[in-house]
């Protein structure tokens, strides 16, 4: 659960500067930017996301490397699944592969 997911900031909410739409390999969800208030990111920046909160700003190259790290660790699907789950969205229906996901509960 300690793996951080790289995402690109697409848009920062105009009515709440602590909410941003991010893109993680094509999946777009809202994340919280409140932990980066000392060094606010702007649209186009890359961040590492952990449990729905942006934790740190990173370079585009580091973001690509982080995604590659997740792939090597066999965690890239779980990472995308986590991002899909942000905002309580319904997950896709897939058989259980040993990881704990929302569909385990259905």
């Amino acid at each position, binding site marked *: *659960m300690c793996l*951080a997911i790289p995402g690109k900031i697409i848009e920062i909410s105009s009515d709440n500067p602590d909410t941003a739409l991010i893109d993680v390999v094509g999946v777009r969800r809202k994340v919280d930017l*409140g932990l980066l208030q*000392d060094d606010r990111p702007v649209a186009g920046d890359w961040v590492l996301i952990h449990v*729905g909160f942006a*934790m740190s700003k990173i370079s585009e190259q580091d973001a690509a490397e982080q995604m*590659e790290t997740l792939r*090597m660790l066999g*965690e890239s699907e779980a990472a995308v699944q986590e991002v899909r789950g942000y905002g*309580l969205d319904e997950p896709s229906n897939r058989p259980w592969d040993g990881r704990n996901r929302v569909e385990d509960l259905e």
Partner: protein
Amino acid sequence: MRFVDEFRQPELIARAAEEIRRLADPTRHYRLMEVCGGHTHAIYRFGLKDVLPDNIELIHGPGCPVCVLPMGRIDDGMSVAQDPNVIFAAFGDMMRVPGTHGSPLEHKARGRDVRIVYSPADALKLARANPDKHVMFFAIGFETTAPSTALTVLRAKAEGVRNFSVFCNHVTIIPAIRAILDSPDMRLDAFIGPGHVSTVIGCRPYEWIAQNEHKPIVVCGFEPLDLLQSIVMLLRQLKAGEAKVENQYKRVVPWEGNRAALRAMGEVFQLRSFFEWRGLGFISQSALRMRDEFSEWDAEQRFSIPGIRVTDPKAAQCGEVLKGVLKPHQCKLFGRECTPEHPIGALMVSSEGSCAAYFNYEHRKQAMVNILSPTA
């Protein structure tokens, strides 16, 4: 070498492995602890032991949040969930961790309202969407996760969401390292420092390990090359008789950490005088509780929590494995009564637990070796 072909920068990996061989003194046995469960998973998945000399032993540390949580805390959390007005929300990692009367998932099967969330913010969202219910978020994690919980509590207070609370099980990594260093059966040479915890706390909190305990520590990333480079850095320090904090994961970890995250944690949490860790026992000032100003959002204040203490199943040796005294396969239950499908201890549940990692990678490899050479 099979290992080298599968990863990025294979020539650098080969060079780092070669440098480790050159630096390791063949007359010495090195015991290096990787503190973080993410590193434990990576080490097994990448088969790193295959490229290290035999005299470099990697000891798996306490940095897997679900693994160090005593069973009594799960029972305490589930006792609140028996109330039909309560929605119990937790990360997926928690769902299969056994309590005395079953895992949260099994409680769900018995009709309790148990939900997986991927973010504490979503637990708060559940509370907003269910104003006639109470949502209790079962919070776990080290300093990587605690700031997100803290910010969620601050948001709940700011918005006046009163049907939301946190059952706080957040722990802090430094006291656990101290407890391990104080343990008489633990002799370690150096530490591979946690990666993402350090994005929050930075590198300074490790300085006492170098200065007072004279053990090198290198904050490390999660790729094979990161781990091998960190081992090179540790061996260089050990060879030179030095002990300092180094940061191999500079691309993500700033030396000073994330001050906004630390502020949020400081605002919402204070240190508990002590907390029980599975395998390590009671460690003083090793966990977080909510400050009194947030008692309205503190499940331990709002509900009557039984404070259950459970001794681990006698035959299971989770504690010894957690301390690195036993290897996972040396536990009497490993791979027999206790498997990832039917876990008895939390170390077999989480992918960051050393038993699950060992079972999924090493155990299968060993089974293959036994098949190929049955007399070995």
